[in-house]
């Protein structure tokens, strides 16, 4: 291992793998991936279900296969990897401190860093489920690792809180392995994952889904013995008289994901309080020169294919920075803002000049579901910059609108790019 690298990528999930490949292809000589697990691939390795790669490969692949294609290419291109290693600190000057049982403690210097640490799951404490603290309360991802990688069942009789995709997919997985999934509870009035997962993970196996329901209390001192489920009103307040005790030995939580940015913060990377991820421009450059970010570390995606695409863009920018240093923009970057019915927009800044080389895809989440044709529109004050139509907009699915070369003039003159999602 060297002490100096052009580009160091932290994390080897889909974002990190793509960033490393793109950096290498763009001409960076010394590219290193640091991964905390003993092999590359990140969480994809435990996502053994299919549904990955439709956008990128036009194929429907299981998670491990999707990862394997990129891993093989990483090896083919001679990208270095540091496995079983945890990054302890990164500095504003792009010094990286990492530790590994295999290679010891290392201090590295990178010309550019790509943050690709992904996200972590929200826990019981964050949604403050009352009751005792017995064993048997796990996040869906922890259970997924146990079941799919290590071969252990967390329990036999299961209640799942949250209708996120991981929760529904684990309902099916645990059913496949012989557990009884009693039901899935969702506090929102709508599904938080994809409807096709509702069909093929829950409906197919007669697993009841209760919308507008939550767990009022966990029962059991040593191991979970039951949960008390309850219906909630629009303000998420339990409706008296709707309580039901559901005997179970396990409660799985699929209640949201949070970008993992503790390392980023150490280096002074500024975070968007809405996404929980860094403020980035269209090249995924953060506010700290030479530090880029890609994938779920920026905001939580719905499809892995888009994570890969972001990784490619970030890796390419990082390579360019490593080789040429900071570009001086002739036109100041234009900020994007979340307008009507939009929760956030990524990237936060757009350099208009980039439009001459590539399209810029603005990614966002809608606030309220609209089950009708909608406009996804970009305005600068009263001027329409661009818009596109979509058949619906749902909070569980990311929404895109693309800025193209033809939009250059309008973008260049804009003060802001305000995105809104409104009925047709």
């Amino acid at each position, binding site marked *: 291992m060297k002490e100096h690298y052009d580009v160091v990528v932290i994390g080897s999930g889909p974002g990190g793998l793509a960033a490393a490949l793109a950096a290498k292809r763009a001409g960076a000589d010394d590219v290193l991936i640091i991964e*905390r697990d003993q092999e590359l691939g990140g969480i994809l390795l435990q996502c053994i279900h299919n549904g990955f790669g439709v956008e990128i490969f036009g194929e429907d692949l299981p998670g491990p296969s999707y990862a394997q294609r990129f891993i093989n290419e990483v090896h083919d291109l001679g990208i270095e990897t540091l496995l079983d290693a*945890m990054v302890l600190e990164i500095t504003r000057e792009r010094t990286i401190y990492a*530790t590994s049982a295999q290679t010891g*403690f290392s201090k590295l210097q990178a010309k550019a860093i790509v943050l690709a640490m992904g996200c972590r799951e929200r826990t019981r404490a964050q949604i403050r489920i*009352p009751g*005792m603290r*017995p064993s048997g309360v796990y996040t869906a991802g*922890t259970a997924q690792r146990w079941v799919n990688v290590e071969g252990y*069942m967390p329990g036999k009789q299961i209640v799942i809180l949250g209708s996120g995709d991981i929760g529904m997919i684990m309902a099916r997985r645990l059913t496949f392995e012989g557990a009884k999934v009693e039901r899935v509870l969702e506090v929102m009035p709508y599904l938080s994952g994809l409807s096709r997962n509702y069909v093929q993970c829950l409906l197919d196996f007669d697993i009841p889904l209760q919308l507008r329901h939550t767990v009022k209390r966990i029962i059991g001192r040593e191991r979970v013995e039951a949960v008390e489920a309850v219906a909630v009103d629009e303000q998420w307040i339990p409706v008296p008289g709707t309580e039901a005790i559901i005997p179970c030995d396990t409660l799985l939580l699929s209640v949201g994901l949070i970008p993992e940015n503790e390392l980023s913060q150490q280096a002074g990377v500024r975070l968007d309080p809405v996404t929980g991820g860094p403020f980035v421009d269209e090249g995924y450059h953060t506010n700290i020169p030479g530090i880029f970010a890609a994938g779920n570390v920026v905001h939580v995606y719905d499809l892995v294919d888009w994570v890969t695409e972001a990784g490619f863009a970030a890796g390419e920018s990082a390579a360019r920075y490593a080789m040429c240093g900071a570009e001086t923009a002739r036109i100041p970057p234009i900020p994007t803002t979340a307008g009507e019915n939009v929760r956030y927009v990524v990237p936060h800044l757009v350099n208009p000049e980039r439009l001459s080389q590539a399209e810029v895809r603005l990614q966002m989440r809608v606030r309220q579901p609209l089950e009708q044709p909608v406009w996804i529109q970009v305005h600068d004050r009263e001027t329409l910059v661009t818009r596109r139509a979509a058949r619906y907009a749902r909070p569980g699915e990311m929404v895109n609108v693309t800025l193209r070369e033809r939009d250059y003039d309008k973008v260049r003159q804009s003060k802001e790019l305000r995105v809104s999602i409104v009925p047709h």
Partner: protein
Amino acid sequence: MHETPGSPREPAPSTYDIIIVGAGIVGAMVARYLSRYQLKILWIEKEADICMGASAANSAIVHGGYAVEPGTLKAELNVRGNAMWDQLAEELHFSFERCGTYAVAIGSEEQEALRAEEARARANGVPYQLISGEEMRRREPQISPETSGALFCPVGGVCDPWGATIAAGENAVTNGVTLKRSTAFLDFIWEADTNKPPQIAGIVTDRGEFRARWVINAAGLYADEVMHRAGVREEFTITPRRGEYVVLDRNHFQLDNVLFPMPSRISKGILVTTTVHGNTIVGPNAEEVGDREDAAVTTQGLEEIWEGALKLVPNLDRHAIIAVFAGLRPGSNAPTPDPKIDYHKDFVIEIPESIRGLVNLGGIESPGLTAAPAIALRVIELLKQAGEVLYEKPNWNPIRPGRPVFRHLSHAEQAELVRKDSRYGRVICRCEAVTEGEIVAEIHAPVPADTYDAIKRRTWLGTGRCQGAFDMPRVVELLAQELGLNPLEITKRGGPSKLLARRTKMRD
């Protein structure tokens, strides 16, 4: 035949001089200070590990002593105990910071209460300084703008109560105390042929009988049951008071001080305080519950503490919450020994006269953590007064060596440690940067950590933002590997708290 005190016969293996019942902070300190003497000591705990009751879930404050009623045992032992913590932390290597604490008055209407705090501080001989609201806001800019003044107590501090209990217990064990966990007290055994005050001859547990001349009741939440078995203080009752807390992520919210509100009649109120780990904790409320095991968190309770905390620090952010927990305090109805003091929630620390062989400790709620080392010294004084001649061990070692804590080291020290032992290079808990080396060291420590929670209490693994979601599968694997067990046997907290149900692929 049965044993008599001072029998020249070589004692049978299950015969001890002293049995300590309960392995919270009080039991641990008593065990540690008694291990100095040439005594054969058995120390039992009903749970799978030490520090699993009241000592495990509290505010982690080493109190100055201004908040307790003058003239009570609580006041005396608080002040005496407080003074012992620097040396204790130095000898036992656990985290303790004498950072000082503030009792904050909000608005002019709390000025009177502040004067009462001052009066108690003076009566108890506790050093303090009264500061203005302006000065308080300067020292803690996040405090309520309504702050009208505060009492600063420079000798107050914060500690790691898990670390303190476990380190004291470990020091006791390395000095010869026999610790038996998962061993529950059931009853006393009595000498058959004593005519005057009945003499305790030992105890019955769910793991057999053990004989001893002395039994020390340090059973915490169950202290009343133990003393009633001995036939003393029939009127004494423990009323568990549940206190709920929330923990705030240090990366999200930072506070450098220990802030108490003005106290209510039943508790010190809801405080907002820093910890030795840099996370802020908020709590507790105080709710009397019937069940001594009911450490459940409730929606109402959490709302109550949040509301209370906002009065002190208005800018607290709910998004920073990473953990919620509840503890049970063993509140009692014991009157202060001095009849002139009208106080009925005092500690019980005594050798009752009606029987022989019992050292009775009860109602050790706050400031019990602070007072615990002083209580241990009081126990020794009581034993001596009862005629017990204690000989010091020539080789008693007061030092419990510290073990490397990766996150406390500089990068250079970390590199050096990893070079010496590569297992310190593998981080298992990313939020708290706990390494495999530290976990393995705890699994093989003098008081071995053999459950997930036991490792958590010793290393603080799983206490951060992801609450164990990342480390748990890895810890289960390590525990199984190091203990030679099947991962299916690994528990969260002992007993039936197994973490896993079965293998996925069963050969059928």
